[in-house]
């Protein structure tokens, strides 16, 4: 199985390593070539460039990718790249990180698989506070 990871920051690089350890053929894309260092001893692919550049996406192999993860540091960049991967290259599984819960919900409703760490943090923190308060009351 082949995966392309767009945005090789903390999230992207960790997902890339986890998938590679699971036997996936993984290629990472990042504007900053230095991001390769986050991957440690890396045997997968790495392409330096902006992922709105279709040549960059093509050389990362999106045309025959089974999955793509989009996790750059810009919500709108991720939203646009995610839709381009779905609509232009028909990548079967596209997962997009969106920090803003409102935009994540908007695009989720329109068929984009979004993951919103902010929303997760809000519910985990609220639950943790309620659980602790429940014990002390």
């Amino acid at each position, binding site marked *: 199985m082949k995966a392309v990871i767009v945005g090789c920051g903390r999230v992207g690089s960790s997902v890339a390593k986890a998938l590679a350890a699971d036997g996936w053929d993984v290629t990472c894309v990042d504007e900053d070539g230095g991001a390769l260092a986050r991957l440690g001893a890396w045997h997968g692919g790495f392409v330096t460039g902006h992922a709105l550049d279709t040549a960059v996406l093509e050389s990362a192999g999106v045309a025959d990718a089974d999955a793509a993860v989009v996790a750059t540091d810009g919500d709108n960049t991720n939203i*646009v790249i995610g839709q*381009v991967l779905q609509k232009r290259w028909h990548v079967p599984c596209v997962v997009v990180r969106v920090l803003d819960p409102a935009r994540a919900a908007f695009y989720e409703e329109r068929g984009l698989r979004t993951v919103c760490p902010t929303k997760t943090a809000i519910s985990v923190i609220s639950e943790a506070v309620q659980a602790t308060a429940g014990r002390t009351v």
Partner: protein
Amino acid sequence: MYAIVAGGGKVGSNVARSLLAMGHEVTLIEQERERFEQLEAELGVVVIQGDATEIHVLERAGIARPPNLVLAVTGDDEDNLVISQLAKEGYSVPKAIARVNDPRNQQHFDLLGITQTVCATSGLLGLVEHEVPEHGLVKLFELRREGLELVEAQVGAGSPAAGKRVAGLALPEGARLVSVMRGGVAELARGETVIRPGDQVVAVVKPGLEQQLRRVLVG
């Protein structure tokens, strides 16, 4: 008319100022604090501060009314695309016009259904090509939604169209000649118009047929 202008840079602020002067109702959204204060001092309460790609900021600007027009003219193409999608798909705004900063991103706007776009760079390049005397086929204007382009061709002495009547040209289905310019004077193209070397011919053509048309007119 009510318009929301997203992005208070040179483009956004000038468009907002002009719309206001024409008597339209405008809300201008600018993200950066310092620029916002400048604009607010000049234009008053019609300017609000915030990230126009955030739904609550758009709602504060009145996107739910909805406005007749949203202009997404920030300096960031991804932001402009998202603003246009939020306006059209989320709030049924009848018209959203997006600025394309990098012409290479035009394809993404087309793919994602943002058909009304303005790209200064492409426009300038078109004009520059227009000034080059030995050009082949130049795109003058594009009606994206209608799927038509207006193009201009320079007919040379060796061009296949030189010396032929318009009616006798093997134009591709989906292309029509509009006018023939000779010695600075443009005449509407008729079947009996004879094309001569040095003529500048304007045609309407469906996208994708430009090369076929070029072969017939220019060679």
